[in-house]
């Protein structure tokens, strides 16, 4: 388990291949890109962690408005600082890969959109989500009336048990009606 030096052991590679949705080439490429982010002295460490500010310099994530949330969701660090080990990085790529199932993708999408990590998407989460989607420029941002209308529409359409929040099952139910979700929830190295 874990990666040592700059070489992946054969058994780790096959283990990763079996437990993620990535192919062998994708895992090797991920290993290469990950070790590029490590410091020189860390390259020989087992389970080295890359801090969040380095992960978000990856070109695939650099301009993504959800980059911090993605790091937080896949991070297993105890300080909750969004740092990723190589295995967390593979988890990230696996969830965003071509062959990941809809269930996995919708699960992680839910967690990425849950800005306050409370297990549901309440009004504050939805507001932050919409602001991320539309960008922060003044003319693209929605006005407060528009935001209220939008959130009440979203809750009306997706909140089945009428508790004012969207939980995971309701989110997955909404996603299942969108055929474009699986193809847009992808990041490829």
């Amino acid at each position, binding site marked *: 388990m874990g990666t040592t030096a700059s070489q992946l052991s054969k058994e780790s590679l096959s283990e990763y291949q079996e437990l993620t949705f990535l192919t062998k080439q994708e895992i090797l490429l991920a290993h290469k890109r990950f070790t590029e982010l490590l410091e020189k002295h860390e390259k020989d460490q087992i389970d080295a962690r890359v801090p969040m500010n380095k992960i978000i310099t990856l070109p695939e994530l650099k301009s993504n*408005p959800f980059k911090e949330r993605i790091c937080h969701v896949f991070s297993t660090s105890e300080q909750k600082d969004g740092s990723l080990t190589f295995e967390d990085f593979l988890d990230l790529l696996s969830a965003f890969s071509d062959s990941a199932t809809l269930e996995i993708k919708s*699960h992680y999408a839910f967690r990425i959109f849950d800005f306050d990590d409370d*297990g549901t998407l309440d009004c504050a989460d939805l507001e932050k989500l919409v602001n991320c989607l539309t960008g922060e420029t003044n003319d693209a941002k929605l006005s407060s009336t528009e935001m209220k209308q939008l959130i009440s529409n979203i809750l009306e359409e997706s909140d089945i048990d009428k508790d*004012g929040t969207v939980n995971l099952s309701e989110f997955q139910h909404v996603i299942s009606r969108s055929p474009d979700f699986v193809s847009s929830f992808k990041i490829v190295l």
Partner: protein
Amino acid sequence: MDYNVNICETDIDYENLADGEPAQDFSFNPINEPETSTQNCPEILEMEVFKECTDVQSNRSSSTSDESLDREEISHLQRHGWSAATVKVLASMPSRTAELNKSRRVRYQASSHESPHCSRPVQGASVLADVEEINTEGLNFCAAENNMDQLVSSLQGLSVSEGTRKLRAMPLSLADKIEIRKVAFSLKTESSFIGRNIPCYTHLSMYISTTWRHCLFSCLPVFSSFKLWHSALKTLSGRYGTGVLSYFLFLRTLLFLNLLLFVITGLFLIFPQAIYPPRSSKADFSGIELLTGTGYFSDSLMFYGYYSNGTLHGDQYRMPAAYFFTIGFTLFIICIILVYRLSKSFGKNFQVLKSNENLAVKVFSCWDFKVSKKISVRLQSEKISTQLKEQLSEMIKGEDKKTCMQQLRRLIVHLLAWTACLISIFLGTIGVHYLSENKFNFNFKTILQAHNLPEDTELLVLSAVVSGINLLLPGFFNLCVWAEKYESPGTRVYVSVFRNLLLKVSVIGVLCYHWLKSIPANGLKCWESFVGQELYRLLVMDFIVTVVYTLLGEFLWRVFSQTILQKKRKPVFDIARNVLELIYGQTLTWIGVLFAPLLPAVQLIKLIVLFYMKERSLILNCQASRKPWRATQMTTLFICILWFPSFLGTVVTIIYTVWIIKPSENCGPFRNLTTMFEGGQMSTRHLEDAHPILKWLSWVYDCLVDNPVFLFLASGVFLMVIYFQAQVVDGQRKIVSRLEKQIENEGKDKKFLIAKLQDLCK
């Protein structure tokens, strides 16, 4: 953690319940005896909630002043004005925390066995005050432990590979998965089947089945990861999004289809005939033949006329049989592939024509994570913002009521645009028809001789005119659509796709009519080769015109729009038009396979060059669109168009040719026969004589396929199955709506019970 809820905070529903229906009063056992009731408090709660009570009402009325203060603290965006404490309790319920725990580190929780027990501690008077604590911490641990045990036990029942696959599909972190796998399968490895008492033959079968499954699952990723042009597509999708990517994916699909076609015809037709050429070669090669397909090419492997009607390599390889069955087989394979892709596409997206007004779906699934360039990300945000604002403003203001005059004006504009388009299509078609029949009586020969061009250039005129029509009229249609100002972008796209489709169908229809009706009657020496040459010329001309348009036209258009029209943005890639051009080229190739077996190779080369050219032109001249493009729906539509007018039309044409038209007498594998179909029948009879086993196959064919009764029965059964499925779908829809109502009611029950719980605390 103190339980600091004000007794007076209640939920609106509860209030309405009590206020609006005074007859339905609820009561509780008085709370002045906590010591005796704490032992079985939860059970009492469940039982007593439905008894009558009048106290609660009076309690509430006296504390309305406190209520109003607390309500102000509640966010203005909370829908039902729930109390903060209710929300806190709800947030710590197992249904919400269980999901989080599944993906937290199971190791972390499993190792802390000293955590509070799963059973609720019911000692002490402050039991209800601890309920929240228990909910947030105890149940978390319980849930986590239970989860891990459940997972491990469920995996132990499966084989290693199945369990691994199931584990892979779970949303846990990789470290946890490795740990769970070790725990779950450590027992498995101890009892390998070699050690068990199993007889030898089952050893072998087990070994075979495990290696077969291993091979299968290791091959599947190989096939799915066969990525041609992977990095180029990734750059494109990073800059332009999924819409433009779908055009290039469609191009790649067509490329593979053509490759398959070429391989099959190459193996069975071209290669054998190439090894045994019927006669020695002929005319010299001059450059113009690449364009016209005559001269050197006319008597080559390229066209039908070259293929012999006898047997090759002694008596072993019958050319007519090979020709007939190869063409039939390729069409059959393509049919299967297209139907498979169509059904998969439809399965993913069964609402092809319905426009998606659903805001929740849009917000949750519209962000394209593949886009990585900063400018494109900004454009995407703008696109989403515009879309949302448009829809919201409509909702806030309400639909604009148009006056009668405006409606009439719009109707007139639509009518004019449609008439203009239909007239232009009609004129184009008539022009092609007269040109092909040479009714203009234009004497091209004199003009050509005057300019010292070879005679065969005359043949290029028809294909040049057709390509010109295909180039100019779509531009005219775009103009019409722009003038009509459709409200929804979806309608705009569908209308323009329909008009383009109509144009191409009419042009190909008229050409097919010309080829199948007038040419065989013309008395040409080898009419099939001539038709093949016409198709070749059309394909090549189309290619040249596309190249010129892409290299020059799009570049010039960008310069024009930036300098003269003063637009700040570069033009947008017209996906619909380009895809329809691909489909047009593919239709020509499919029709041409019968007459010119090497045509798929030409199309293959064309597609490869087109890919690189379009990619270059895109990067230089275009930018990402600001309008939304529903990629999956459009891909389904394009595969539909590839199947229905394109492929089925081809099949109808080829069946007509094979069944009815008399092949030419001097060339080709079917010379001296009444129809090509007869050649096929003769070949089957020969095969039957050679291999008597096949006789039963033909008997089956005669009994079943030729028999009308069987066909009626089959279609009757088919219709019944469709009817049943429709009824099942209808029933399921009703069940879904009933379940949604039930979930809503349970949500209300939950809120009610929580409110009662809170009341009991005080």
